[in-house]
């Protein structure tokens, strides 16, 4: 019984953090324009992938956060879901097989995952007929978002490391 409560508590914690990140991203992008260049749901997918290092929960987290993001966007449902699923899986695989504790490795990984996310979303957009009609600044946007995400990701991972070390 106690184990079941713990499991539900864990699921609840994950669900709340996913909802909070999508909502906060929406509010901050509206209130503070610079947040348009961040993709906090993507950072969270990578964060859980790296820190859990287990592909199954990372895939579930990626799909859930992607679908939540799609519901507040104009893109077809499943676009971000597909992309974040793949990124969650790749981040968890990388987290379990490679040493992702180095800040430089993490920053490069977040940057590459951001560009990959942009590419997958654009590709799915082309396939479903929802692609952006002017792609002249698309690559530039991915690069800027990648740099911003890498910076914010470093802060989040740094905070996680401090909390983990303090607890142990």
């Amino acid at each position, binding site marked *: 019984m106690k184990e079941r409560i713990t499991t539900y508590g864990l699921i609840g914690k994950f669900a709340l953090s996913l909802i909070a990140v*999508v909502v906060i991203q*929406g509010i901050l992008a509206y209130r503070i324009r610079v947040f348009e260049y961040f993709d906090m749901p993507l950072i969270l997918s990578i964060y859980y992938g790296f820190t859990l290092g287990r592909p*199954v929960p990372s*895939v579930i987290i990626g799909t859930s956060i992607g679908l939540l993001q799609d*519901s507040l966007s*104009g893109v077809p449902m499943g676009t971000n*879901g597909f992309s974040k699923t793949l990124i969650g899986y790749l981040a968890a695989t990388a987290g379990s097989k490679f040493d992702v504790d180095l800040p430089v490795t993490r920053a490069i990984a977040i940057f590459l995952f951001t560009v990959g996310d942009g590419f997958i979303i654009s590709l799915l957009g082309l396939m479903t007929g929802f692609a952006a*009609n002017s792609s002249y600044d698309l690559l530039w946007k991915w690069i800027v978002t990648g740099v911003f995400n890498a910076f914010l990701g470093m802060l989040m991972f740094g905070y996680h490391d401090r909390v983990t070390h303090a607890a142990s």
Partner: protein
Amino acid sequence: MRTVIDSKKPAWITLAVALVFNTLLLSAQTSKHFDTSFVRVWLLASLGPFEKLVDAGVEGVENIWTGYIDLIHVHRDNEKLLAENGQLRMELSQKSEDALEIARLRQLMDLRARPIGKTVVARVIGKDPSQGGQNMTIDKGTKSGIGRDVTILTSDGVVGRVISSSDYFSVVQLITDSQSAVGFIVRSSRRLGILKGTGGAELEMVYIDDDNDIKQGDELITSGQDQIYPKGISLGTVLSVGPRQGNFKIVRIRPSVNFGHLEEVLCMTDHLPEVPTGQAP
């Protein structure tokens, strides 16, 4: 749930299931046989209250700052506003006379005044959480009569249209979104055309060849021919008429609405075929 998460089965099975699920969802939306809008509506209805709650908290902090702490220039601004108010009162009185004259002339010419359709005021509570997304969330939904394709405007002009609604929340596609298209008329020359969003801050005219008289500074209003936006609402101003690229020219438009400062918007729940404001004289 624990058994799923801790499953010893290869993780790629979970990955394959999740990817197939998302692919099916995407495919269902491109097909006309399946209606998957309920998934979006359900998620929007679940996320909306959280978004409204956080937005109210942020606004409360902002109000404390602007209402109590940041009052340094209030006295100076007050004097300036009083002077402006006096001038505006004089102008209003003059305009009232003009309005009465127009009403008399309308009566003489047997023209009926065309009022704007039924509108509902909504508050913007969030923006698209995706990379470079051009959508926003408002705090009114189907319970307030807002459904798909309802026109959203401000006093400056067209903001966009509703693309999905739950009972109390709606997602609005801005006219700057790359999937958005609006029919326009050039106010001075009455030339018709189509404006598309660029996914950035500007709009772009499509299918403009050399044989046109569009020039920088031209004002554009909605044509009503897209069957979504009512005729006569301000859209924007021509920013640049570029050189020909391929078969057509690149014409960039600055929208009338400043999308960075949207707080309240009007939702036209029941618009009439034409709106009097902004029509050519």
